[in-house]
């Protein structure tokens, strides 16, 4: 199939359209604005809706309304904007509403900067908002995966009735690569018998709601949601294994950091150090099985992150701290060079885990 040269942000937008999304609500913020710009150009010609909201607070609630009405809806933003959306994402989780939310991360905290970052890992994988809940967090590392995983995100959202986040970063969003705009096969989807789009006088009224005042009932609803989360953890975790078969030193990296890590793995092997890479494509659920298996053969792990040691906690949990886990961190919009990751590999190979 023909490949076209596209920005990551544009590939996300076109993939959403391929997946049947015709409703986009957003607010401008660097470095994700191309998603909105692309949607504003394409959606009106497809009979869809592009709407620029007054804030991220409003845009996520518009997504909530459109989702409740039964359509595939999405929004995109970058770190500070996602913080503003956290209320709405929590409500969507509580209401069991599907939606796709894109976070093209930039440096923080606060207004931070506009250069690429992975500092929203905790936010995406622990809880994007208040209350007991998760969102599925997908991590592409190339423009092709921006397209493929965005389509998967819509299916996952519909199947599990939960918000799904694409966690990218400024590099992935802004860089151009050849991409095959292929429609990935749609999964079997459950009927949406819960939507609020009018009873047409044919059924009792549906209610989309997250208020449950009786604690016994609220606890049970959380139990039920976590049963679904368990199913997601068992069946949806994805991880790329790169040269891990005989690896002594296993790197853990996702997104842009994983691309640089691959170069470092090759450089280490050229020096006779058996390095490998585990690359989670799902950050929640974290691919625990891959890491648990690696803990049996690897001598040590290195979490390579554009953040101050966030994913490293999941690496330690998944490996049950059976082997040392070192941190190779850049932050604030700074990006690792392959050489500094290689230096870390050499250091760890020499028994220095600090």
């Amino acid at each position, binding site marked *: 199939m023909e490949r076209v040269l596209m920005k990551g942000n544009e590939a996300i937008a076109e993939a959403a359209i391929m997946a049947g999304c015709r409703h986009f609500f957003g607010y401008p913020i660097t470095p994700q604005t191309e998603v909105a710009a692309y949607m504003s150009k394409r959606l009106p010609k497809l009979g869809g809706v592009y709407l620029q909201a007054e804030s991220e607070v409003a845009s996520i609630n518009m997504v*909530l309304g*459109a989702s409740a009405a039964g359509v595939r809806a999405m929004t995109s933003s970058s770190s500070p904007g996602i913080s503003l959306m956290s209320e709405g994402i929590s409500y969507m989780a509580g209401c069991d509403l599907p939606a796709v939310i894109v976070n093209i991360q930039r440096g923080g905290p606060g207004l931070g900067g506009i250069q690429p970052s992975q500092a929203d890992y905790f936010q995406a994988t622990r809880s994007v908002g208040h209350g007991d809940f998760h969102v599925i967090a997908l991590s592409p590392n190339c423009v092709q995966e921006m397209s493929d995983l965005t389509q998967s995100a819509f299916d996952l959202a519909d199947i599990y009735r939960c918000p799904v986040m694409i966690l990218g970063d400024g590099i992935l969003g802004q860089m151009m690569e050849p991409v095959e705009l292929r429609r990935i096969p749609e999964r079997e989807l459950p009927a949406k018998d819960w939507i609020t789009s009018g009873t047409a006088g044919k059924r009792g009224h549906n209610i*989309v709601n997250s208020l449950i005042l009786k604690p016994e009932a609220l606890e049970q609803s959380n139990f039920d949601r976590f049963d679904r989360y368990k199913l997601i953890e068992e069946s949806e975790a994805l991880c790329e294994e790169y040269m891990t078969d005989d690896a002594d030193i296993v790197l853990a990296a996702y997104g842009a950091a994983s691309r640089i890590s691959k170069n470092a793995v090759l450089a280490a092997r050229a020096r006779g150090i058996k390095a490998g890479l585990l690359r989670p494509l799902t950050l929640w659920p974290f691919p625990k099985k891959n890491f648990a298996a690696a803990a049996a053969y690897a001598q040590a792990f290195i979490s390579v992150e554009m953040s101050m040691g966030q994913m490293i906690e999941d690496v330690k949990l998944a490996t049950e701290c059976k082997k040392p886990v070192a941190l190779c961190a850049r932050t604030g919009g700074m990006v690792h060079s392959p050489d500094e990751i290689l230096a870390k590999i050499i250091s760890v190979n020499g028994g220095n885990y600090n």
Partner: protein
Amino acid sequence: MTVFERPKALSDVATHYCPGCTHGIIHRLIAEALDELDLTGRTVGIAPVGCAVMAYDYFECDMIQAAHGRAPAVATGVKRAIPENIVFTYQGDGDLAAIGAAETLHAAARGEKITIIFVNNAIYGMTGGQMAPTSLPGQITQTSPYGRDVESAGYPIKVCELLATMNGTFYAERVSVNTVKNVRAAKNAVKKAFDYQNQGKGLSIVEIISTCPTNWGLSPQKSLDWLAQNMIPYYPLGVYRDRGAE
């Protein structure tokens, strides 16, 4: 012969509202309008955070419970997804004029084809009687125990006057439900608001000056008197925008 019965759009359940509260009357007016315009089957209502948070249990149409102040944004999402349907929000003064002021103004600025039922009783009811963005100058509440001091707490917001300045607002009327005459006028306004939406017109809002006997610390009858003597002079009843009649 039956001369008075429950509107079909109103669910046959007991409500949680306090005795003497005007929410019950307002719910009934909405339900009557939905019945008379035959809209219930294609209507989606949005409940706020506030005393009416559980309004989703009281109407027979599909309902969504929104975050505090976000009802106009949720309504926008619903309406843009299913534009042939009727969408209304039901919001109190704190929800609409404080935390949701941006969502309200921008829904009006865009001329969203939704109907807002705005219940203004000049106090936060659900949380136990705090100062609202519409509390009157000098009004004593739990958080303005010496009376609302406009020097530090600012002035009450006149929502209909504000929205009337926006071209996206198709219809804005302030009514009350403190007398039989006013209830009848309120009914006409609510029905007109839904009718305009059904015709595909822009945003319609009906502000309903209401009581809160519990948190005002007055009997239902004295609350109605206080409303007439204090609220209506500050919030004059009437049509503030009606582009259908211009």
